[in-house]
């Protein structure tokens, strides 16, 4: 376009020059023709140069683009991330021996570190500080924990092998528990007291995609260690100089082929729940199943988990059967707001022959406000009742993030 304009200008100037110089010496037609030929040649050269320049700019852009992508790939070999959640609890106890809970706590501060050795071989870890301050004494309630540290190998595009310290494939929240991914300030009590979330063990796990949307996980790992004072399901050893007299096996089948739907079932088996340390404590089996259904803005989560633990001592304590379930409907109004309600109940002594009921029930209602897709403020009201003990009700406020 500019070249055309320049040419027009040159022709105009040439003609004007011709007239003004006419008084001195008018060029002949042959001379004008020569000048036109010269200009045509110049124009051709300019066009060629312009095309060359255009090509060079494009080449530079392509090279720069490739260099940026290569750099990103190099930088992505090691990655880090994390999540955290700050909680304020204000619950009032009602009934004998039920105390108030009024506290503020930076419940979890977690950092992830990962490294990709090759496209098919990677390392991942999760390092956590719970309750902000760890150490000896009641004023330091926290714990520093290594929750994940494993090597994962992709045998092929349908099979992964994981070795090291990893999360047991069971429940909804054990593997995905970043605060922006669930409703409620505190995690639900069933996945805390029946499935001991966050539950990690050391061992080997194979994940196999059997069909599109159907996966099987088989994990051979270290196990739990119940004690004579408490045969609770939440008897984690946390792979900290853990007793390895009795190993465990977890199998999970998960179906996710329909968008918005997840259905899964896990079976955990351990040959000796107390690692041979307690007479009258035997094999343990846990079964868990859950479903998540999401349609447009509505979501329903439902989970059941239960234990059978062998042994006379366990039975005498009423801990041979432990189970619980919860239902959680929720509605996401828009990108920012979502509300939920939850009913949950569990019992760590469901095998008790005593007339005293040991069931714990809780009803919650609340909302999440996502400040950003992975930054969330939470509020809920909870009413919890422990059979034969009393009630506790009040509010929880939380702030959480992940990146």
């Amino acid at each position, binding site marked *: 376009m500019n070249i055309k304009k320049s040419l027009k200008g040159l022709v105009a100037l040439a003609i004007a020059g011709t007239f003004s110089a006419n008084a001195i010496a008018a060029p002949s037609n042959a001379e004008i023709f020569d000048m036109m030929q010269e200009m045509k040649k110049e124009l051709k050269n300019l066009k060629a140069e312009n095309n060359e320049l255009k090509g060079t700019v494009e080449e530079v852009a392509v090279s720069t683009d490739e260099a940026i992508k290569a750099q990103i790939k190099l930088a992505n070999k090691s990655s880090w991330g994390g999540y955290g959640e700050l909680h304020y609890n204000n619950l009032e106890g009602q009934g004998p021996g039920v105390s108030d809970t009024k506290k503020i706590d930076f419940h979890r501060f977690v950092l992830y570190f990962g490294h990709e050795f090759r496209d098919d071989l990677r390392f991942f870890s999760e390092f956590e500080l719970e309750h902000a301050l760890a150490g000896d004494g009641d004023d330091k309630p926290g714990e520093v924990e290594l929750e994940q540290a494993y090597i994962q190998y992709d045998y092929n595009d349908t099979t992964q*092998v994981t070795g090291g310290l990893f999360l047991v494939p069971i429940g909804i929240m054990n593997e995905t528990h970043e605060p922006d991914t669930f409703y409620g300030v505190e995690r639900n009590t069933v996945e805390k007291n029946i499935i001991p979330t966050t539950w990690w063990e050391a061992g080997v796990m194979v994940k196999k995609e059997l069909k599109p*949307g159907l996966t099987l996980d088989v994990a051979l790992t270290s196990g739990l260690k119940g004690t004579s004072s408490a045969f609770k399901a939440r008897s984690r050893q946390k792979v900290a100089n853990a007793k390895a007299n009795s*190993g465990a096996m977890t199998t999970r089948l998960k179906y996710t082929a329909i968008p918005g739907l997840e259905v899964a079932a896990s079976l955990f088996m351990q040959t000796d729940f107390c690692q041979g340390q307690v007479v009258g404590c035997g094999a343990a089996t846990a079964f868990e199943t859950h479903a998540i259904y999401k349609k*447009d803005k509505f979501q329903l989560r439902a989970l059941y988990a239960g234990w059978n633990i062998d042994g006379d001592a366990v039975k005498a304590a009423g801990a041979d059967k432990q189970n619980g379930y919860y239902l959680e409907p929720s509605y996401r109004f828009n990108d920012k707001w979502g509300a939920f309600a939850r009913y949950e109940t569990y019992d760590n002594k469901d095998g008790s022959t005593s007339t005293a009921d040991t069931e714990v029930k809780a009803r919650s209602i609340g909302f999440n406000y996502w400040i950003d897709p992975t930054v969330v403020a939470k509020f809920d009201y909870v009413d919890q009742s422990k059979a034969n003990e009393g009630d506790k009700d009040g509010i929880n406020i939380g702030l959480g993030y992940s990146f």
Partner: protein
Amino acid sequence: MILKRYSLLIIATLLLVTVSSLFARGIYQTDEDFISEAFLKKPPENGRIMLGGDVRKRVTSLLGHPYGGLIIKYWEKEGKTAWILEEIGKTEPITFGIIIKNSKIEKIKVLEFRESRGWEIKYPAFTKQYNGVGLEGDKLDKNIDGVSGATLSLWAMNGVSRVALYLSQHLSNKSK
């Protein structure tokens, strides 16, 4: 003891692993095959859009962050455009192939997945939700149901869908 007790299951699992066919990791379809399939084995020459000025600003707004490259390649023929775009899921880029026709998504496909979680978005049952989806302002005009545990992959797919729809519109406006 546990090994003896469950040895049959372990052997069965190992067999299951061993007999699996071997594929290159996470590459479900090459870029070339996707483009060839999109244009019935007669693909046009590819064009390039350099991300600069207003185009870059709009792409940044649609993704929520700048696009990880300076140039986006596309293929255009008979009112149809095809795009190869990359977007990070959690830590790794996912490669998507997207076909746009009449300002709507005709097809979206995961061509390469490098993350260790969230790969469920590759299933046709999931990707077909995008068929016929258009752009309304900065958002897709239809809600996409996610897969539990694959939220970040879903966000990546939504992001590249918005970008492809916008760039296709941009090309169409430019040629008018």
